[in-house]
């Protein structure tokens, strides 16, 4: 079927746009679009084009709308773009809106069936694929037909924007773990659509891919996989968890990488328990940390709620354990598959009583890996739970990265006394008590069960203990303990990963952010610089904040705190931590369920800065 060109824009005069545009793919979930989108992203990655794919999906399993955005950027910008130039409108339910969102000159790739309803605009290019007709020409078994139907847009996109077919086949093979049969079945459909497009569609848009050298030596991975790999290299021993989007694939990652830690008899050094709920998962890691192993759980907001009581107990009993919070919109229902940075305050203050949980805030894939292993060293060195706050965007989407660096420090088990060390301690100090601070850093020495020494045992409980871990309800015992815990927090401030700072522009304007906003902020800063507005930059990577964060705020006349939550939670925290420095600090917070865009930052900062 030839396309009706009467209402097409005249595009011959437009300059070609190469490797610098974005797609939005609208499909129905459960239709196999995950595979087709992955194939597109991985193909661009293999063409050497910096690319990022983001899955924007509602909480349904089958038949309802889902979107996937793919951004190619020759300059290496991989933040989400607010507007995509191209839409693949394969879902009749959302097609009208999907097309309405296109900018003038945009492109709509759709099925012939949907096209009848949505061809109202004359300022964009429509390409119609006769999906049903093409599928009738394939010999795909009927059981698979619905699942490979989406490969028709892969074929059309490959032809229209120049993605080599043989490269797509290689990606398919990798996707199906080397199995030729499913790779070929999918590829046949792609080729059919490719050939049909070549014969029947006249290209009227300027967009095109071209192989380049932008991804050589780089990897693509999800943040959950990166964190899981980090945990495996960090010596995780006990994993307890309960399924919850978007953290489930974190534990899937540990399961996939567990073999790296098996011995020659295929025996495990990592136990993985799917608990009955997140509360039990928190209990299991607390027990495992107390007994001297490296324990981890991964969850999201609702699970963090259930873990609150154990988090508080572990904080006061000073038990190391690692908790990953792959943040999504809270609370439980409504937007559970949308990204957010809305758990920052909740997680940092998790627990009843005066608790301040240690938090690590990875902003990219490399940090997800690094904090994956480092979190155990920090938890054991500081004898405390450590929360790694990631989000759905980093956790579940494919990110481009340099390969990960092998851990640059040996494993740090912290101040654990074995029987001989315990004896030396007693010889030196006259006695050992679980909560004695002999080093002045607020960090006591601990023993673990199984230590063969007559004085190794102690009784762990939350509050109500003296330095010997003996039950005490004396006020002065507890106040003394709280002072020591505060000292420990101050030790932690400078021991946790410090902020990333770029103050090279010596600007009066400072931008403070955390986590996955990094890419959007970086791009927005470049746009602002083009307009003559220079900015300095600080990305917070841990809580409680290091003194360098306060110094940065103090040394800039105008500070914007950019974050992906509605209330400006990092901004609030800075008010708590540095109340004397804060009058010139403004919050730029947006919690809309989507990854941050450079355009939102650019527009709002520019407006505020005047």
């Amino acid at each position, binding site marked *: 079927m030839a396309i009706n060109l009467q209402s097409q824009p005249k595009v011959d005069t437009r300059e070609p746009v190469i490797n610098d545009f974005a797609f939005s793919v609208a499909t129905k979930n459960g239709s196999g679009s995950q595979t087709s989108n992955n194939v597109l992203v991985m193909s661009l990655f293999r063409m*050497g084009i910096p690319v990022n794919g983001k899955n924007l999906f509602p909480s349904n399993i089958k038949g309802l709308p889902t979107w996937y955005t793919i951004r190619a950027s020759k300059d290496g910008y991989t933040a989400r773009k607010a507007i995509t130039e191209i839409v693949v409108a394969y879902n009749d339910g959302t097609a009208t809106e999907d097309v309405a969102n296109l900018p003038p000159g945009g492109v709509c790739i759709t099925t012939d069936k949907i096209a009848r309803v949505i061809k109202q605009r004359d300022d964009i290019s429509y390409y119609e694929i006769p999906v049903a007709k093409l599928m009738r020409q394939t010999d795909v078994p009927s059981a698979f037909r619905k699942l490979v139907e989406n490969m028709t847009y892969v074929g059309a996109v490959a032809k229209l924007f120049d993605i080599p077919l043989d490269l797509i086949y290689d990606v398919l093979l990798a996707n199906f773990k080397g199995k030729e049969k499913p790779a070929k079945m999918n590829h046949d459909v792609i080729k059919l659509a490719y050939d049909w497009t070549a014969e029947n569609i006249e290209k009227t848009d300027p967009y095109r891919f071209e192989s380049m050298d932008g*991804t*050589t030596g*780089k*990897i*693509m*991975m999800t943040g959950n996989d990166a964190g899981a*790999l980090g945990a495996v290299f*960090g*010596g995780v*021993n*006990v994993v*307890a968890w309960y399924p919850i989007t978007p953290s489930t694939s974190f534990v899937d990652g540990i399961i996939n*990488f567990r073999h790296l*830690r098996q*011995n020659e008899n295929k*025996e*495990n*050094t990592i*136990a993985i*328990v799917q*608990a*009955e*709920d997140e*509360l*039990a*998962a*928190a*209990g*299991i890691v*607390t*027990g*495992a*940390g*107390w*007994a*001297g*192993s490296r*324990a981890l759980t991964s969850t999201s907001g609702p699970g963090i709620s259930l873990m609150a009581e*154990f988090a508080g107990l572990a904080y006061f009993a000073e038990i190391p354990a690692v908790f990953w919070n792959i943040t999504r919109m809270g609370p439980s229902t409504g937007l559970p598959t949308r990204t957010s940075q809305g758990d920052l305050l909740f997680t940092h203050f998790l627990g009843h009583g005066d608790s301040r949980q240690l938090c690590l805030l990875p902003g990219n894939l490399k940090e997800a890996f690094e904090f994956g292993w480092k979190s155990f060293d920090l938890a054991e060195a500081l004898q405390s739970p450590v929360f790694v706050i990631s989000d759905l965007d980093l956790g579940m989407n494919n990110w481009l990265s340099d*390969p*990960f660096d*092998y851990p640059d420090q*040996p*494993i740090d088990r912290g101040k654990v006394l074995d029987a001989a060390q315990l004896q030396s301690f007693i010889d030196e100090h006259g006695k050992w008590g679980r909560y004695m601070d002999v080093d002045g850093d607020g960090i006591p020495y601990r023993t*673990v*069960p*199984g*230590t*063969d*020494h*007559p004085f*190794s*045992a*102690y*009784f*762990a*409980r939350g509050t109500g203990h003296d330095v010997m871990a*003996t*039950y005490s309800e004396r006020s002065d015992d507890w106040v003394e303990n709280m002072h020591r815990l505060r000292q420990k927090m101050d030790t932690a401030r400078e021991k946790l990963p410090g902020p990333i700072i770029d103050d090279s522009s010596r600007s009066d304007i400072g931008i403070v952010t955390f986590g996955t906003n990094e890419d959007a902020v970086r791009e927005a800063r470049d746009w602002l610089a083009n307009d003559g507005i220079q900015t300095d930059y600080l990305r917070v990577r841990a809580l409680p904040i290091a003194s360098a964060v306060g110094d940065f705020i103090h040394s800039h006349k105008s500070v914007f705190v950019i974050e992906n939550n509605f209330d400006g939670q990092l901004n609030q925290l800075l008010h708590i931590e540095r109340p004397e420095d804060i009058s010139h600090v403004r919050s730029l917070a947006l919690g809309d369920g989507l990854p941050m865009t450079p355009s939102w930052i650019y527009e709002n900062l520019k407006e505020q800065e005047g």
Partner: protein
Amino acid sequence: MPPRVNQLGLSRNEYKGRPSTLCPGCGHDSISNQIISIAYEMGIEQHKFIKVSGIGCSSKTPAYFLGGSHGFNALHGRMPSVVTGALLANKELSCIAVSGDGDSGSIGMGQFKHVIRRNVPFVYIIENNGVYGLTKGQFSATADEGQFLKYYGLNEMPPIDLALEAVISGASFVARSFSGDAKQVRALLQAAIRHQGTAVLDIISPCVTFNNAETSTKSFPYGKDNEVPLHEIQILAPDYVDAKEEIEVGDYEAGDVIDVEMHDGSFIRLKKLDNDHDPRNRRMAIDVLEQSLREQIFSTGLIYYEEPRPTLADTEALVSTPLARLDEASLRPSKKALDSVMRGLMAG
């Protein structure tokens, strides 16, 4: 005269903990005492044991026994998860855990059943008194239907039978006892410590302050007058087993004695009383519990026993060294391994 000592040269005093803070005469203190006695008699090495509990009067008791063992007073109803983690971290540890009827029968019912499902090997003692003590006398879920308590009036809910719940959940060792029956508690504790699976001991342990009226089935007077032991219990440790045949069976006829062989080679010798209960028969175990509930018979003894399933550590196929003691070489794969993973993720 020097104090008597056990095979490790330790006196019974060395198995004690700190002084109890429970009400004088509390049934729970009696159970703590039996734990101390058994640990002393068996000559256990305290550093190889942990003691864990939830919250409540019962859960305070681990502070009062085995002062040489690491202890953890955790959260209300959440002892099982802490035990699960600790025993995965170090599978060489043994664990005596104490819970109560509020802790296991209400807030912790989920963890109670799931720890059994996973077959975490430990002694799970429920000190069951049918009442919340620390919060001043509310009914618990195991209280008798129709019971009247001063503070809360009439209990119109039927009780949950925790021994029955344990059998249904797949526990391989389930016993019921009475804290006033020290001899039976000691025998069951000995067997439970040797068991390679979750061993549930539901011990009726009267609250002398809030629930000790004669009309309560959880009271001392009721227990003393109404306990119906299913059998007399004797534990034959592995080192005695060769001499098993010679051990005095007493006045019992052959057939009136059941020897239950345990995983570690020891035997639980049950001398029959007025009934035919065979704890190796799951149907009989359920029947005896249901009949006891229906007819308010205070049956005690080893309710159910089966050869334990693989423990959680077995199911996880863990290395032989406890996870908590692995060295750096076992905890961190090589740089080569990381590079190999990275290469697999590259564009080409």
